[in-house]
């Protein structure tokens, strides 16, 4: 099961990396924010999978923190881009 969880984490990381090409291409600020949003959600999924793989429940707290702060950073982006 540990191997499968690492494999799942790797698969999510690679798909998210694919989406990150939007940061390079843009064209608008909104597109770049979407890529960051995708990485936020993907990063949380990878964290949860890693936490289960290594058997450390504290990793869930990291995911919780990332969820809160990613939302905060996204809103700062929207406010910054809109001004």
């Amino acid at each position, binding site marked *: 099961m540990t*191997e499968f969880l*690492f*494999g799942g*984490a*790797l698969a999510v*990381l*690679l798909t998210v*990396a694919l989406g*990150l090409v939007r*940061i*390079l291409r*843009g064209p608008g*600020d909104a597109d*770049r*924010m979407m*890529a*960051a949003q995708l*990485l*936020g959600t993907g*990063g949380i999924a*990878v*964290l949860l999978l*890693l*936490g289960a*793989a*290594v058997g*450390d429940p*504290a*990793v869930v*707290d*990291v995911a*919780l*923190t*990332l969820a*809160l*702060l*990613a*939302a*905060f*950073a996204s*809103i*700062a*982006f929207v*406010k*910054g*881009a809109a*001004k």
Partner: protein
Amino acid sequence: MAFAFDLALVLLTVAVAAWTIALRDGFAAVVAFVVYGALLALAWVRLGAIDVALTEAAIGAGLTGALLIGAAAAVRRATRTALPEQRPDLGTRTLAAVLCAAVAGSIAAGVLLLPEPAPSLAADAARHLDATGLGNPVTAVLIAYRATDTLLEKVVLVLAIAGVWSFAPDGVWGGRPGPAPAASQPGALLLLARVLPPVGVVVGAYVLWAGADHPGGAFQGGTILAAMVLLVVMAGLADVPRIGSRALRAMVLAGPMVFLAVGFAGVVIADAFLAYPVPYAKPIILAIEIVLTLSIAATLALLLAGPPERDAAPARPGQ
């Protein structure tokens, strides 16, 4: 499979780092930097440093990202002329690349040649853990063994605040940071600013409390609280307090002051500066941490808010 994951993570991190440098658009570079911070948080989990992963997720990705995007937006508004592309010529860039490759190469060599067995203070940290009453060795290092570092770090934060405030024009000294909140905000933002902070305050308090025995602590909890306060401010539900406010300044100073008070009390009650009497070590540490969390939250939020720009308090006679 674990190694394949690590390799992919390392390659992706390096690629995103290169983007933050290579991208022409400054806004895109900042977005890439937030992604970089989130990837580093994953790397910290892989290195078994969950405490650091928490801090990186909160400060490295979230708060620094919001800070830089705010600065980029302010610069964009203030800049009258379009930025000319004025990178150094090819010769200079090649020279810089060679220099940086040499630096990276020597550090890589240093990593490969690290001594075996690795020196470690883990055994010492474990031996004295019981005396602190804590279960998390990282918190023990931060608040007990190396408490002077943490005290000085709080002083650095206060100095940074003083530095940022000193950029205020004379006319608005003591006023409120940032532009006045807009009258109407999008409904979705208002909703989130009402729903998220209660959850965030609970998570922040939980992270602080968990920090005694599990990964977590004052910095991570304080950062989460700061982000929630700023969210409320961004949605226009509350205004930033005047920086002239005594309550606000007391809150910023509370962290280092409590630390100093405990430190000097240690000289009298225990036997050294910042020494805790062993039977009361845990309650003292928890008390310091709670004050630190609130103080860090206020300081980080004010650092993000920037220098005062408006709304100075009217001068009162006799002052």
